[in-house]
């Protein structure tokens, strides 16, 4: 979709003035877009995702102006994207997102305390010929420093109205609202946004910086492009002659004296017009992109179909520029330089600066990034997060389990014995329980991530840890997701969105589930407490070893992936260190809620579906005893005290040992599968009962404990600490009388759980984040192989040494 579409809808809207308008908020990261968005909409907004990608899309109606809808775009530094977030912002601006409505206007949020760099994007956006309004946010910081900005002069220079605001206190927001209203009004009146000119400026044509090709004024450009488009058809495959003719009479661009580079840029712009690659309004932006290094392989313009002739010409242009400048410069870089030169002049004119002082941020950073203290602060921060995840979430998780248990009881009481009741209790409710029980941890983690991000510490954490991550071929930003993985891989994988490079992001996603998440803890505890009684130091040591194994494997695998399947240049670590700011708790809570809800709805549905399938596998075929079907417990159930009760009742009615829930499970499809794979897992030291536990665990590893309880027919509620299960495990024996669980088998089993990807939620979220089944399948395969190999080496190696 191109800009044409938005222009036509805009004029179509003239007749029905009731049509709502969509205004986009763009700006550099941390410029205060979301804060202003919340102010403008009054915190009433909907969060969804852009079609096909996982970048969040917030949209809400402007308070007091219901016909105006505002959408908060992800932060970006320029129109040449380097991360999925930046890509979506750029594509929305250009109207390239399939199925998304084009914007009717743009509000560029500028951090006024960092004017020069923020204006880089603002001026690029202003040239897109969409109705544009510029907001100088953070005016409090500017005045606090003793600086001043002449907003009127700035407006004149940029060719767009400028409003000053303080997002955090709301100063200027009313003025912003009416400015947006005026912008929409004038678009409506003129009917064609290309005609929209802010009253207080002479428009884009008056810019002292000139775009790198002749289409200077929007109206002239539009008309000219149409004319050229017709005659350009013939020139499409033709030589440079035609194009040169077409650009004859063009005004020499002011920004560059080098005739060759000037020619290059207008050539590319001409190519864009000749091939009608895009509507006239976006010609500048696309030409710039096509001039950028590696333009022909840029993934972000891949959707723009470049005809073969066009590709050839472009490649030739690139080669020529490369040769002309000895590979040192490109037209693209010159364009950036020219824009900054112009912006420096503008900023010098509009801004008066007080002498530089040492800021509070600097003072904090002296500690937070100090050689010794920096590490200490970092360790303390992470310690705090973990402590709270585990201690605060505990009562909530218990509460959720109780509620799930009550629900199961309710269903049990309401429905008569039968398949429907078993399905609801052991399939649906138990599956839901598996998802919801981690909800508190996920919320707390997201809350901390939001607070860290908002305060500015997140960037410091990445700064401090980057060296460590570089060793694994990763980016400093990978550290936080990997660390979050100790709690749960799902939010961790969602947190990888801040990693700009796709390969680095994928690598981080692929290794994150190797970090021991909290769902593995019950298994470690069960094995250690059953098989290593006594020495608390040994127990703690084994536990630590499991966490260390996961972490080291994750880093090694990352290194391996980065050198093989996800080979690419070392990730760049060009990252802004924003000033520290007091985070706003309301915004952080809202953010936490939006993201956590996404987890519930997106991962939740898949997990419940799969839980039901696994339930059926454990439920069928039914065992017939005296012609009465018995409702046996399911291994997937972690909330099935009711089912146990019923089994007890069933046993009482038909006193037959064969009806024990364990028996039903054993001869179910899942049980058969467990037995079927016994030869495969015997080299790891596992028998078929463990095989059933392993199979059931592929839904979610934490069901292992509950499953083993069912397999061994432990009657009371499965609990890690419950001694009957531990006793059973200690006593379990092979047919020849050897003990099944030796300490070596325990270690082998734990190693399997460290390395295996037994978590539907993780696979579901990876599917979502990568938008294909390829990566979750790959993840599942490599981790299962790793787990098998790991267990094999431990068990067989241990036996060689005579342990076991």
């Amino acid at each position, binding site marked *: 979709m191109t800009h044409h579409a938005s222009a036509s809808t805009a004029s179509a809207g003239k007749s029905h003035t009731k049509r709502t308008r969509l205004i986009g908020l763009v700006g550099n990261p941390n410029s205060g877009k979301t804060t202003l968005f919340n102010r403008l909409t009054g915190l009433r907004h909907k969060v969804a995702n852009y079609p096909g990608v996982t970048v969040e899309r917030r949209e809400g109606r402007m308070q007091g102006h219901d016909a105006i809808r505002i959408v908060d775009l992800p932060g970006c530094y320029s129109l040449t994207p380097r991360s999925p977030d930046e890509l979506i912002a750029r594509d929305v601006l250009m109207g390239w997102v399939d199925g998304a409505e084009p914007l009717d206007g743009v509000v560029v949020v500028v951090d006024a305390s960092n004017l020069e760099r923020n204006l880089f994007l603002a001026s690029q956006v202003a040239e897109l010929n969409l109705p544009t309004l510029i907001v100088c946010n953070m005016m409090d910081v500017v005045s606090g420093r003793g600086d001043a900005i002449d907003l009127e002069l700035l407006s004149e220079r940029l060719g767009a109205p400028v409003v000053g605001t303080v997002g955090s206190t709301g100063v200027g927001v009313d003025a912003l609202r009416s400015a947006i209203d005026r912008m929409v009004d004038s678009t409506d009146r003129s009917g064609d946004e290309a005609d929209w000119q802010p009253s207080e400026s002479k428009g884009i044509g008056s810019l002292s910086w000139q775009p790198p090709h002749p289409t200077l004024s929007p109206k002239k450009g539009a008309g000219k492009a149409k004319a050229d488009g017709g005659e350009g058809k013939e020139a499409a495959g033709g030589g440079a002659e035609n194009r040169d003719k077409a650009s004859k009479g063009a005004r020499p661009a002011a920004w560059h004296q080098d005739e060759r580079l000037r020619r290059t840029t207008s050539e590319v712009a001409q190519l864009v017009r000749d091939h009608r690659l895009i509507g006239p309004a976006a010609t500048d932006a696309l030409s710039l992109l096509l001039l950028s290094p590696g333009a022909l392989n840029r993934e972000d313009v891949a959707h723009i179909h470049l005809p073969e002739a066009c590709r050839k010409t472009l490649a030739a242009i690139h080669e020529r520029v490369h040769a002309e400048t000895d590979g040192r410069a490109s037209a693209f870089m010159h364009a950036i330089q020219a824009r900054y030169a112009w912006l420096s002049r503008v900023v010098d004119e509009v801004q008066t600066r007080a002498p530089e002082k040492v800021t509070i941020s600097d003072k904090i950073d002296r500690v937070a*990034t100090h050689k010794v203290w920096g590490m200490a602060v970092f360790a303390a921060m992470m310690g705090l997060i973990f402590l709270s995840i585990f201690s605060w979430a505990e009562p909530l998780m218990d509460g959720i389990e109780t509620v799930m248990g009550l629900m199961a009881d309710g269903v049990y009481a309401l429905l008569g014995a039968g398949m429907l009741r078993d399905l609801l209790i052991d399939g649906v409710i138990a599956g839901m329980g598996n998802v919801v029980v981690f909800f508190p941890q996920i919320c707390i983690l997201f809350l901390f991530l939001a607070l860290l991000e908002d305060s500015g510490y997140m960037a410091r954490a990445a700064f*401090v840890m980057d060296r460590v991550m570089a060793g694994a071929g990763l980016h400093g930003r990978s550290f936080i997701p990997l660390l979050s993985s100790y709690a749960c891989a799902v939010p961790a994988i969602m947190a990888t969105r801040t990693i700009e490079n796709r390969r680095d992001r994928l690598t981080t996603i692929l290794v994150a589930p190797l970090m021991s998440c909290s769902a593995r803890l019950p298994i470690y505890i069960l094995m250690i407490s059953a098989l290593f009684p006594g020495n608390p130091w040994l127990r703690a040591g084994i536990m630590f070893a499991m966490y260390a194994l996961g972490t080291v494997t994750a880093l090694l695998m990352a290194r391996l992936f980065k050198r093989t399947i996800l080979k690419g240049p070392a990730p760049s670590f060009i990252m802004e260190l924003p000033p520290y700011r007091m985070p706003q708790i309301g915004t952080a809570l809202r953010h936490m809620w939006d993201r956590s809800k996404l987890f519930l709805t997106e991962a939740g549905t898949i997990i419940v579906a799969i839980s039901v399938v696994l339930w059926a596998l454990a439920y069928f075929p039914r065992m017939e005893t005296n012609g009465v079907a018995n409702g046996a417990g399911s291994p997937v159930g972690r909330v099935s005290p009711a089912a146990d009760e019923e089994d007890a009742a069933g046993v009482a009615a038909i006193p037959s040992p064969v009806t024990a829930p364990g028996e039903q499970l054993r001869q179910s499809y899942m049980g058969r599968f467990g037995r079927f794979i016994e030869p495969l897992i015997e080299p790891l030291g596992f028998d078929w009962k463990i095989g059933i536990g392993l199979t059931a665990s592929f839904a979610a590893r934490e069901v292992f404990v509950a499953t083993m309880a069912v397999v061994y027919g432990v009657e009371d509620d499965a609990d890690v600490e419950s001694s009957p299960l531990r006793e059973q495990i200690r006593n379990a024996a092979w047919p020849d009388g050897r003990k099944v669980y030796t300490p070596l088998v325990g270690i082998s089993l734990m190693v399997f759980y460290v390395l295996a990807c037994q978590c539907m939620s993780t696979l579901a979220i990876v599917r979502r984040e990568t938008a294909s089944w390829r990566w979750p399948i790959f993840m599942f395969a490599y981790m299962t192989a790793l787990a098998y190999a790991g267990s094999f080496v431990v068990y067989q190696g241990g036996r060689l040494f005579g342990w076991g």
Partner: protein
Amino acid sequence: MTLDQLTIGQEGRVEQLDASCGSAARLMEMGLVPGTAVRVVRVAPLGDPIDILVRGYHLSLRRSEARGVTVGRVDTAGAAT
């Protein structure tokens, strides 16, 4: 000399960016264009990356990336070398 060779507190002026380095374009978009004054503010605890002050804000980048930026020293006296 290159940007990674400046020590903490030293100032420099960007002379040229190595176009063959993949991040040159982004560095320029972030304001690091020829002629810009930069100062190394601090170095991460483990020696890499570095934190520079450019156009009034803090930017961190790895030494390997800083190596692609040629700078001229600006001494406190103001003389460029």
